[in-house]
């Protein structure tokens, strides 16, 4: 039998708070009939106010949802309610059933669609497009370098603030030059705090310069530079190459709303290889990002890493079985060791903003400059953590050492998941309480 997901995980799949709330109301057996689960799927009929009940199916591995209700939210409250019901009561959603006809139909159709492969593109045309783009990006990088140098010649004082340093315009030009990575970093220059502006200018200059001689760089570094500039790699292409099969522990996830998309970061760590991996998934407005893996669980799967000097970003390939709860806190480092591994990542890839690390035996405490995590040897300031998450972390610790996963960067550490003394994981990035 498949392990049932936690409430926290299910609520984290909801596109918004209203859907969470509505799902809570549908989490009792009352409106449901013919509910069942088996073969990696979950289905049931939900009686709404109309005379025909809604047909709700969930495919658990991806997960994917289908419901006959008219809601444009995705997943809808019925899918979430059914998941909550399933997680709470084994009797209400009996296991080991054959899917109902209508559910089976959708599940099979889905499988077939997945098996269909995309038609191969015209390789010659693709190469011509790539060459044209490379030239555009190169000229964009050159222009950016000139702008940066001009700015430094005149002085960057007063570049930030409400007036802005005019970088929005430069950013737009980088978008035209098809270098989204440069565009994002250029736009950020206006928003950086005063004491970080010079570093922002310098690292952007370094990136533009690196691209101009990208062909001379060693291949992994060239890949890193291209990725930072904004050349994307096709997932299917990556998966066609070598993959890493392992039992991947889900260290945690965090959604960031980059208007209009929601970006979900999912961090994994291989039990056998010890490798860290970062999966990205995007959701359109009103929809949660499609990829959702429960924190503290582990799944056997193949990952294909984006190439580079410090491969971290990966795409999820074939899975071998459903996720299973992985009890206990993961292997962890001291604060000093974690900072050293962040340092190594920066040394390899200077544009590394943060590096995923698991800190062991740490506890949150206050200092005159703000909150920090401390172990017996040292302390690390906490960064970009909302109050609610900060207090949840503090409550779980209760003044005793805990294990914390998060992102280590030059501004401090951003916690994502905490394991309590019993080794139970709690997400610090989802809205609902654990």
């Amino acid at each position: 039998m498949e392990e049932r997901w936690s409430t926290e995980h299910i609520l984290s799949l909801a596109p918004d708070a209203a859907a969470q709330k509505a799902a809570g109301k549908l989490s009792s057996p009352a409106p449901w009939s013919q509910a069942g689960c088996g073969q990696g799927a979950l289905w049931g009929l939900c009686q709404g106010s109309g005379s025909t009940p809604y047909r709700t199916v969930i495919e658990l591995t991806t997960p994917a949802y289908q419901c006959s209700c008219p809601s444009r939210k995705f997943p809808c409250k019925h899918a979430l309610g059914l998941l909550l019901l399933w997680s709470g009561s084994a009797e209400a959603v009996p296991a080991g059933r054959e899917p109902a006809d209508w559910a089976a139909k959708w599940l099979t159709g889905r499988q077939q669609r997945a098996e269909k492969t995309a038609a191969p593109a015209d390789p010659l045309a693709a190469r011509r497009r790539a060459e044209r783009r490379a030239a555009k990006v190169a000229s964009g990088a050159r222009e950016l370098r000139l702008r940066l140098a001009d700015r430094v010649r005149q002085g960057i004082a007063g570049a930030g603030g409400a007036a802005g340093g005019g970088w929005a315009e430069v950013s737009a030009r980088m978008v035209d030059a098809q270098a989204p990575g440069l565009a994002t970093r250029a736009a950020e220059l206006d928003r950086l705090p005063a004491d970080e502006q010079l570093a922002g200018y310098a690292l952007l200059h370094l990136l533009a310069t690196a691209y101009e001689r990208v062909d001379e760089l060693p291949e992994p570094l060239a890949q890193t530079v291209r990725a930072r500039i904004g050349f994307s790699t096709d997932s299917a292409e990556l998966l066609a190459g070598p993959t890493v099969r392992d039992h991947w522990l889900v260290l945690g996830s965090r959604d960031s709303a980059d208007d209009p998309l929601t970006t979900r970061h999912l961090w994994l760590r291989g039990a056998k290889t010890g490798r860290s991996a970062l999966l990205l998934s995007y959701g359109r407005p009103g929809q949660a990002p499609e990829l959702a893996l429960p924190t503290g669980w582990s799944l056997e799967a193949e990952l294909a890493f984006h190439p580079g000097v410090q491969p971290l970003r990966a795409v999820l390939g074939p899975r071998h079985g459903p996720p299973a709860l992985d009890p206990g806190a993961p292997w962890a480092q001291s604060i000093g060791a974690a900072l050293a591994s962040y340092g190594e990542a920066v040394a390899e890839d200077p544009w590394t903003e943060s590096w995923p690390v698991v800190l062991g035996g740490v506890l949150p405490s206050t200092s005159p400059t703000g909150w920090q995590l401390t172990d017996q040897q040292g302390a690390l300031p906490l960064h970009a953590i909302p109050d609610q998450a900060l207090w949840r972390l503090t409550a779980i610790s209760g003044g005793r050492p805990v294990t914390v996963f998060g992102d280590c960067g030059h501004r401090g550490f951003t916690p994502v998941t905490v394991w309590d003394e019993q080794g139970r994981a709690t997400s610090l990035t989802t809205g609902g309480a654990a």
Partner: protein
Amino acid sequence: MTTDYWAQLHSTALLGTDRRPLPEPSGPPALVAAAASVDRSDQATALLELAALTAVRRRAGLLPLPAPEPTPAAEPDERPELPAAAARRLAVLLAGRATGATAQANLTELLPQWLAAAREHGYRLPAAQLPALLEAARARSELRGDVVALAGPLGRWLAERNPQWRYVLRTAGAQGPTETDLIWQQGLFAERVTHLTQLRRRDPAAALALLAGTWPSERAEDRLLFLDALQEGLSPADEPFLEAALTDRSRNVRSTAAELLSTLPGSALGARMAERALAAVRLVDGVLLVRAPTACDAAMQRDGIPPKSPTGRGEQAWWLGEMLAATPLSCWTTTFDLTSNQLLALPVAEDREGAEATGADIGIGTGTGTGAGTSAGTGPWREELHEAWARAAVRQGDARWARSLLGPPPRRTGSTPPAGAPAKLLAVLPPAERALWTAAFLRTHGPGDAFQLLGACATPWTPPLSTAVVAALERAATAGSYPWNHSGVLGLTERSLAPATAPAVAALAADAAPDTAWAETFNRLAGTLRFRAAMLAELTEPV
């Protein structure tokens, strides 16, 4: 020093390389050597490259800050852990709270019920959920008692660290004397009231002493609310203080003190009122003869009777009512040697002798019904008298009088409603009796008329009362009224109906015409009941 070199680069960049030369590299030899290889033909580009070199070096070489002194951890909590299903339910209830939409009013109401039940079971809550709960109770003070108890030692530990949750420390009860004094001397008004109320609960005399100590220096509106705190645990020991308060500068304080004294059995004020009352009401040949006071003298005013009626009704009737409402009810039963039922059955007439003697115009209030023929039992003043007794019964918490005034549970449709405010009288009765009376009332009246009575009943409603409510709603549905005509009662019902009634409500939903407002209403009600039943069942599950 690297930092110095970085600072130099930074200030050069701020002013611009046109105005300021590049600084000479300094710091560790490796950095200096790397800097030497930077092409300096263009100063600005060179600065950016030197800055990149230094920035990466600084980031890659980050070191931990020194570890601070350790602080004490929270006391361990030995209570059993909350069952997993109940923890999930709490998450759902709190997620509902976060959005605070009105459509979810039922979930908002369910949280207090959940908290009270969990507290009764003596569970320890999952640490991760405490911050959201403490936050919820910050905004909703009615949750605080349960939340603070459930939060236990970890809650206190957290409150010591988050000023927003300081209320936990004040609600916790066990405080040192220093902190006690500090709250009373320096606390916010709400904190002081809470403190006084809690102290009153533990040690009434100490609370009185605390209040008396600062009484003259308190503001009038504060004095008024502090007086209210004395209501609980009122005893003859409070009488001297309250008697003194009858001469307070503030009129509201005076009348509140008088009201408190009038609820205190055997008080001197009660005796004075009884004396006045017996001068106004005589029993002659089986008839209660009423002679209303003709003036509100200084003594009456001192005892809390305002000379002017706030509603502008006849002054004599007003004075009489105030006087009788403050008179101990035992005064009537002992003086006339009759039971409350017997007294209520007596005819009431105007005491002509007195009226002629004074020649005063009898103040007849609106709706007293005097002037009409004085058939036995409906004479002038009868309603005034009964209303005043009803007020006295509520004030003195006299269940026997309340029962007499309410009369037996109504049996016939259209039976006359009892005197006074039935909901208030009902509140004086024991819960089971309240429920029975209201159920009977519902059987003879519509749900709309029963709104206030239902509000006076203890929750969750007893099964018979719940059944009566469901039946009344069904009648309302059949009679063609709309659910929104009964939104008040439906709101109470979602909160208070016995979970056992769920099947009956579901049956109603099934019977109602599909896709109608009533079908939706009953469906939602059934859903809420099941939710509540499941919620309470989870809390009793073995861990």
